[in-house]
């Protein structure tokens, strides 16, 4: 069941009604059942893997918590759980990628393995990370283990977040999930409004711009110069509106049931540096990576020893960098490969890693620069930083959709072959979207930018609640009509899945 389907809306309507009709103490059971049903619609086979993950992390976490700290068995059980769950994810998601590389290597020998056709359970990257996070927290003693299997199972299978995140933490979600809620029309309105905004971003913007982004991204030979710019910006708009639109729908749906999932985006395009950007984009994943990969690796004993050695051989400055560099590289490798089983994503992750480390190395210099040049505190300079960060992010994205061998050539062509005249004469409207589509896109993106500015200060829904009723009505109903009419959905249109779905 796609989030963008009549079936889903019907499913949701029935569920909300039932949810507020039954006694509060049964609400969580209804949600759990609904989650299984929702998941089964997407492919009953995947359910088996979900249940394996639920049972293993729940059971092992419980066993671990009963063993005193420091005992060997505790650690072995922990590693067993990690290997099992990471193993399922790795095998299902990366076997073909692995075989592909083996085949490339062995091609001269004439050896070739045939690819596997295993099913990839919906949202496996999300729920695996979420349950492994909980499991690790229990092992580290950061959170109490959940004794009730049903409660824990709901945490993993809570249907709005299952398919594309956000990745929640058990200690932050558990109280909300089982509290029970009475009907509140304000909550419903608020949730519906957030969903509507999500559908707007997904249906009106993302699905409309996708053909343009794909056309350019898939033809690195055909489109250089100005087209690289257009492809880059449209790809970023596509990804942002698709992903944040999906997340808005998810958070809105959860809100209908009284549950506040963690925010996943905090105006990322207002960031003034790439490091800041990554603290405001896909926040739940980045937090997960920071907590369960970046810090543990940088503070592990073996990395510590390596760092000591480096200190003795190369001096203090090298020594203190070793943990940071090793942890960053590993973290960004995982980030890359998590996004997709291909070298493109690995390259993209590494490119981000390098960019971040460079800016880290430059930070002391830039701090000095800022101090001696007071004009850097002006708004204009702030704007410059925001635009710079946006462009850096966009350019790094090129590693994701262009073959590695073309990225640098196309990057150079952005400047050497920059010729806006190529756009004159309708060439722009032969790229899969029409002039009407362009008009809609420009207006919609302007709307998104405007709401971004407003919500920096006041959350959009709060801002809206302060307007007179009739203005509120016009704005909300107008948005609804926009989605209804300008949304890309329905017959003759192959409902494309959310880009972030299959991860």
């Amino acid at each position, binding site marked *: 069941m796609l989030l963008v389907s*009549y079936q889903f809306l019907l499913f949701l309507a029935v569920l909300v009604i039932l949810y507020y009709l039954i006694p509060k103490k049964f609400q969580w059971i209804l949600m759990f059942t609904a989650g299984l049903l929702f998941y089964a619609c997407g492919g009953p086979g995947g359910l088996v893997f979900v249940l394996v993950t639920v049972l293993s992390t729940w059971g092992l976490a419980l066993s671990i918590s009963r063993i005193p700290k420091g005992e060997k068995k505790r650690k072995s059980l922990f590693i067993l759980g990690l290997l099992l769950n990471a193993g399922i994810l790795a095998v299902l998601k990366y076997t073909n990628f692995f075989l592909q590389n083996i085949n490339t290597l062995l091609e001269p020998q004439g050896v070739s393995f045939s690819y596997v056709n295993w099913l990839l359970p919906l949202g496996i990257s999300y729920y695996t990370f979420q349950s492994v996070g909980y499991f690790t927290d229990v092992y580290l003693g950061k959170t109490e283990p959940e004794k009730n299997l049903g409660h824990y199972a709901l945490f993993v299978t809570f249907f709005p977040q299952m398919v594309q995140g956000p990745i929640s933490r058990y200690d932050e979600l558990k109280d909300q999930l089982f509290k029970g809620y009475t009907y509140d029309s304000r909550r419903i309105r608020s949730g519906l409004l957030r969903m509507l905004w999500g559908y707007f971003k997904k249906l009106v913007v993302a699905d409309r711009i996708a053909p343009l982004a794909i056309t350019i991204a898939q033809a690195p030979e055909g489109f250089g110069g100005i087209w690289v710019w257009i492809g880059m910006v449209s790809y970023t708009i596509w990804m942002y509106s698709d992903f944040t639109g999906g997340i808005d729908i998810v958070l809105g749906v959860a809100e209908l049931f009284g549950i506040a999932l963690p925010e996943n985006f905090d105006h990322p395009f207002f960031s003034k540096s790439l490091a800041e950007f990554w603290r405001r984009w896909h926040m739940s994943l980045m937090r997960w990576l920071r907590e369960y990969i970046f810090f543990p690796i940088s503070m592990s004993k073996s990395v510590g020893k390596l760092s000591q050695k480096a200190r003795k051989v190369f001096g203090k400055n090298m020594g203190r960098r070793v943990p940071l560099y090793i942890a960053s590289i590993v973290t960004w490798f995982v980030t890359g490969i998590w996004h997709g089983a291909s070298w493109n994503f690995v390259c993209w992750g590494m490119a981000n890693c390098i960019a971040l480390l460079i800016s880290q190395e430059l930070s002391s210099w830039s701090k000095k620069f800022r101090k001696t040049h007071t004009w850097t505190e002006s708004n204009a300079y702030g704007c410059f930083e925001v635009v710079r960060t946006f462009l850096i992010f966009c350019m790094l994205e090129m590693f994701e959709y262009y073959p590695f061998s073309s990225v640098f050539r196309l990057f150079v062509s952005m400047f050497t072959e920059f010729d806006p005249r190529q756009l004159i004469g309708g060439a722009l409207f032969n790229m899969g979207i*029409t002039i*009407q*589509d362009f008009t809609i896109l420009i207006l919609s993106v302007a709307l998104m930018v405007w709401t971004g500015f407003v919500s920096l200060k006041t959350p959009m829904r709060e801002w809206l609640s302060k307007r007179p*009723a009739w203005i509120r*009505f016009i704005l909300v*109903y107008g948005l609804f*009509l926009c989605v*209804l*009419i*300008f*949304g*890309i*959905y*329905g*017959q*003759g*249109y192959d409902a494309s899945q959310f880009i972030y779905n299959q991860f």
Partner: protein
Amino acid sequence: MDSKKYTRFFIAALIIAGSLTALTRLLVPKYMGQVTEGAFIGEYYEDKSSHDLLILGDCEAYENISPVALWKEYGITSWIRGSAQQLIPQSYYLLEDTLRYETPKAVLLSISAMQQIEQVSETYNRMTLDGMQWSDAKLMAIKNTMMPEEHFIEYVFPLLRFHSRWSDLSEDDLKYYFHGEPTTHNGYYLRADVRPAGEFPEERRVRNPEFEAKGYEYLDKIRELCDKNGIKLMFFKAPSLYPVWHEEWNMQIEDYAGTYGIPYINALKDIEKTGIDFDTDTYDGGLHMNVYGAEKVSSYLGPMLLEAGLQDHRNEPELAVLWKEKENRYEADKAAQTKEFAEKGYLAKYAGEYTH
């Protein structure tokens, strides 16, 4: 306080319902230009007179028989509820739907659709089903003939289906906003241009000569519904050269007709008797008749229809007045098309290639 809240709520609901209705009217296709087939089914409801003969079926029904000619020559009152790629189940539900308004004395069913029981394109479904007024018949027709990728809700709210037409809106959408023009003559699609029949691909062997069970199921339902209402049922095969009407299919219809004593008029076997000349009587090279061919088919059908018990109503003054009007409009349309075709060699309205 409360009453103020309710008033507000009421006004908002009114605005929403009103604007959605207005938008739907704007965005649904008007079927007034080159593709008029989507307007056919709905036109039936505009005609207030009763009809002795109801003709049901796909293009073989609405392009090959002229009700005006049947009236002029034989005094038979008839209406064609035909639509592009109309499935046999849809013919059944259109019969059910028609029975809500009148009970004809006879039904002439074009049986060529027996060989294609599942819909091939959702646009054809929309053209047939959107034209029907809401009733149990429409509901069941949608439910039972919808293609897998179609959604029932898109029939309830056509805006969901046609919303993307916002970028294709034309003058016609405003011109025919409230009301369209008649596109047919009692369901007959009049064409006065000529394109002689040419060569057709060689006849291939039929892969699945047996009609599907679903076709027979609905044929039974049509037969039973006619029996129940005392309607004389007849089968009809139009004299279309292509697509080929295979003998295997013909035999099955003959068998079925024989079993239940249903007259089966196969014009394809009576080409000589009809007097059709495939050099002058078809507008698309032998697939469908033009008005000259359709009039010949009507002359050929008339005596058989009278024999089946239909009456000559030409001596009834009220009907005569009504049909005189129809006749005038028909002749004017025919003359205008004939003139245009003689001058240009084609009809501007249909210049774009369109086959169904």
